[in-house]
């Protein structure tokens, strides 16, 4: 793998890492497997792209995207908590609905961001070389998100969120409305996912309705890799591990795609297979370790 490819993978790892932090919040903290993300990632991209092409500041467009994602997550959580629809099903319903909504927002299946200023231009204008602009923006924002989420979860409300995932009966009997907490938590998670989508769109110069496919799988793969490699003993460590897991995941994908065995090469379309194998490896490693240590 060339240095250029490695830098690209780290960049991808950081930008999708913001999404992974969101996935960790629902999947592990709230114990709410949420597939809305496959729809809220392109939702963020669509909102940001349309906002920028209509002349809105690219940073402000990130905020709008996050708000859109928050709303999408709230819908899923609302369906689950108030109408008792199974969380997986509720999130699939929102995801499917978002497909149509995203096309409505963009008035078509995609929007190109050609010849308009993005968040990267403001960094380049500060004198950062163009090929590092992505790293700086994504690294900076991922770090901010990480600090925010760790701070937020250590507040009184944040502690109630942790407890809701851990022992809902207990926290209800301590006076917390768990429905509100779940709606807020899933909303926040999807806000982060949409923010990630908005950044991806600005980075690749287009928003596309199909760009969200497989988001949840990549997110879960990163979460599991992060936990296996970096551990999750404390809440702060777990979130840092999720972000690092995302980087490792993208590096592993880049490595696999660059692999050449005789005449054999992986195609980009083999990505899903590679992801599945990665997740399986990460999941069975602890088991295998135990077995070998026993013998």
């Amino acid at each position, binding site marked *: 793998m060339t240095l250029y490819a490695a830098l690209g993978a780290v960049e991808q790892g950081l930008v999708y890492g913001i999404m992974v932090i969101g996935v960790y919040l629902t999947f592990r903290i709230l114990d709410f497997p949420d597939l809305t993300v496959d729809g809220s990632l392109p939702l963020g991209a669509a909102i940001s792209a349309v906002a920028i092409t209509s002349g809105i500041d690219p940073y402000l467009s990130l905020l709008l995207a996050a708000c859109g994602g928050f709303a999408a997550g709230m819908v899923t959580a609302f369906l689950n908590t108030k109408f008792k629809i199974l969380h997986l099903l509720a999130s699939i319903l929102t995801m499917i609905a978002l497909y149509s909504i995203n096309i409505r927002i963009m008035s078509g299946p995609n929007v190109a961001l050609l010849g308009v200023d993005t968040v990267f231009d403001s960094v380049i204008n500060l004198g950062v070389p163009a090929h590092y602009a992505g790293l700086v923006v994504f690294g900076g924002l991922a770090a901010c998100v990480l600090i925010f989420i760790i701070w937020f979860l250590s507040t009184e409300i944040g502690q109630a969120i942790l407890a809701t995932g851990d022992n809902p009966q*207990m926290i209800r009997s301590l006076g917390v409305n768990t429905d509100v907490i779940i709606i807020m938590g899933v909303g926040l998670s999807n806000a982060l996912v949409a923010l990630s989508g908005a950044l991806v769109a600005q980075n690749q110069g287009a928003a596309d309705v199909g760009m969200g496919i497989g988001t949840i799988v990549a997110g879960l793969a990163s979460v599991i890799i992060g936990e296996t490699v970096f551990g999750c003993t404390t809440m702060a460590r777990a979130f840092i591990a999720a972000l690092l897991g995302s980087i490792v995941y993208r590096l592993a994908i880049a490595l696999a795609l660059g692999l050449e065995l005789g005449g054999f090469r992986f195609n980009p379309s083999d990505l899903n297979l590679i992801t599945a194998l990665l997740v399986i490896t990460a999941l069975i490693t602890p088991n295998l370790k135990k077995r070998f240590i026993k013998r």
Partner: protein
Amino acid sequence: MITLENITKHFHKGSVNEVLALDSINLNIAEGDFVTVIGSNGAGKSTLLNCIAGGFFPDTGTLTIAKNNVTGWPEHKRASLIARVFQDPLLGTCPDATLEQNMALASLRGKRRGFARGVKAKDRIRFRAELKKLSLGLDERLLDKVGLLSGGQRQALTMLMATMIKPEVLLLDEHIAALDPKTASQILHLTQEIVVSQKLTTLMITHNMKHAISFGNRLIMLHQGRVLFDVQGDAKKNLTVKDLLEQFYKAQGEELAMDSMLLS
């Protein structure tokens, strides 16, 4: 303090599994009463406590706690008045949170939660002092995850957490039933100590008739969702296990008589 007026609750209403869990219960519990609740399985003991706590809404009737009509209040809203300890020691605490985080959660029972730090430095000193009173060595383990504690330790912690803010009503749902006899007796004495020193209005479900007699100032026996037997004060002090069993068999006898009438 607590008034139940004509409270009725059916489960699975309209299906073949319909059960009448609470059958027009009328009960008036005075402030500072320590009521022990007994009855066979399915008598409605846990349903009664759950009804007071807001786990479900009754089909009919009115529930008043500390002059508030709480009949329509959801569970989390009633938490400002009620503290609970469950039978399962795992239900009262968060296993993945530390001792101090659990205590911080409990110290905000029924209060607004904001963006202040979850565990504050001044809390830690208070938590340590409170834990020291249990003399279980937990005061040195504020940063340990609660999942590492034994069932008895967790239940002791839950008792402490339930009473960190003085509740109007303390509900104990067979809170020692899942513990070994020695630990159970420790927790029971801790309960007695806390209830008496804080003068808490308490309902305690127990399967142990001796405990039901020796603890508290009032005893009620439930049977098929009705209050079968209600005794307090001196009458309760002079109660024996034999008296209770007689009451119990009398109720069952009626049931048998009804069955034999149906079958004859």
